[in-house]
């Protein structure tokens, strides 16, 4: 059983961490701005970054299923181990569901997503105002849930490092 993450896994983890914090901050900031050229620009950037994050999470999942990650410390109680796995599962599920909901919302609202202003992403839904509003609520709700699970993820990592004093946090760091 390996006790370290591959450098690919680490790179993907931190790339996504940076990207997702940016996406969350931009998303919560931009959504109730009054209409302006800057708002339209923020929305485009948010969508471009969202598509990128979606592709990255797919790459990450592919890597995850082909490379076994290091096991949790044997000293961890069963229930805690289960909670850790469940937490990671929910994080992955949300990292898939959130960009999907954003993509669907864009289509329903009649704004196609064009990746970096160049590559049009097909619309999966026809324009539909009610559905668009519903998907906006779903996108927001999923993100609030994501923030909560993310807080648990970071809190748990800090607890492992400072209270349990194990290598859970350090083993995902670049030079370990």
């Amino acid at each position: 059983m390996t006790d370290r993450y591959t450098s690919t896994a680490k790179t993907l983890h931190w790339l996504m961490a940076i990207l997702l914090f940016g996406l969350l901050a931009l998303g919560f900031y931009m959504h109730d701005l009054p209409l302006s050229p800057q708002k339209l620009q923020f929305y485009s950037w948010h969508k471009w970054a969202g598509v990128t994050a979606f592709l990255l999470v797919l790459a990450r999942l592919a890597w995850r299923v082909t490379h076994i990650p290091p096991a949790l410390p044997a000293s961890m109680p069963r229930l805690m181990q289960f909670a850790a796995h469940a937490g990671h599962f929910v994080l992955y599920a949300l990292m898939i569901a959130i960009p999907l909901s954003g993509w669907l919302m864009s289509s329903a609202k009649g704004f196609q997503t064009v990746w970096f202003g160049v590559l049009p992403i097909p619309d999966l839904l026809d324009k539909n105002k009610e559905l668009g509003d519903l998907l906006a609520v779903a996108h927001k709700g999923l993100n609030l849930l994501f923030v909560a699970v993310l807080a648990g993820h970071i809190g748990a990592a800090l607890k492992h490092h400072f209270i349990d004093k194990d290598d859970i946090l350090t083993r995902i760091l670049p030079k370990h």
Partner: protein
Amino acid sequence: MKRFILALALTIGLPLAAHATTFNQVQTDKSAIAFTYQQMGVKMDGKFRKFAAKLSFAPAKPTEGSATIDIDLASIDTGAPEGDQEVAGKPWFNTKVFPTAQFVSTGVKPLGGNRYDVAGKLTIKGKTQDIVVPATFTAQGNSGVFDGTFTIRRGDFSIGEGSWAKFDIVANDIQIKFRITAVTGK
């Protein structure tokens, strides 16, 4: 030979028969004025819900054709409710001061077949530009349809001033697509 004469007679005879036909009663419910624009590479569709059109066109005498179209700018559908409100405002159409856009034809040039160039003056927001609109005309019974697409530059009419004046977010080119249906009058 007989067949040739028949064909010749038909070709010469048809325009004569059409001579009496003038399409001049516009059917607004079968007409549409739509547009597309680009917003950071994203193609958006919009349309005008209300407009009035006067038209007179006799296929036998195309050069005498004329058209006047008044578009109620407040009836715009930009594709997003937020956008509809925005473009009524001062930087865009300023509909309080300039409620309508108007096209008045100045001449029709037949291009062969059912294609025509319609020259005219387009006035939006107090600014008038000479434009040439390519159109096709298709008649079916007593109903005739003009179809066409042309491009205007919003900058030419100061549509989108101030922070919107740059074209990196909302592109300068606006493609207008129209269909005007008219029936023959008395």
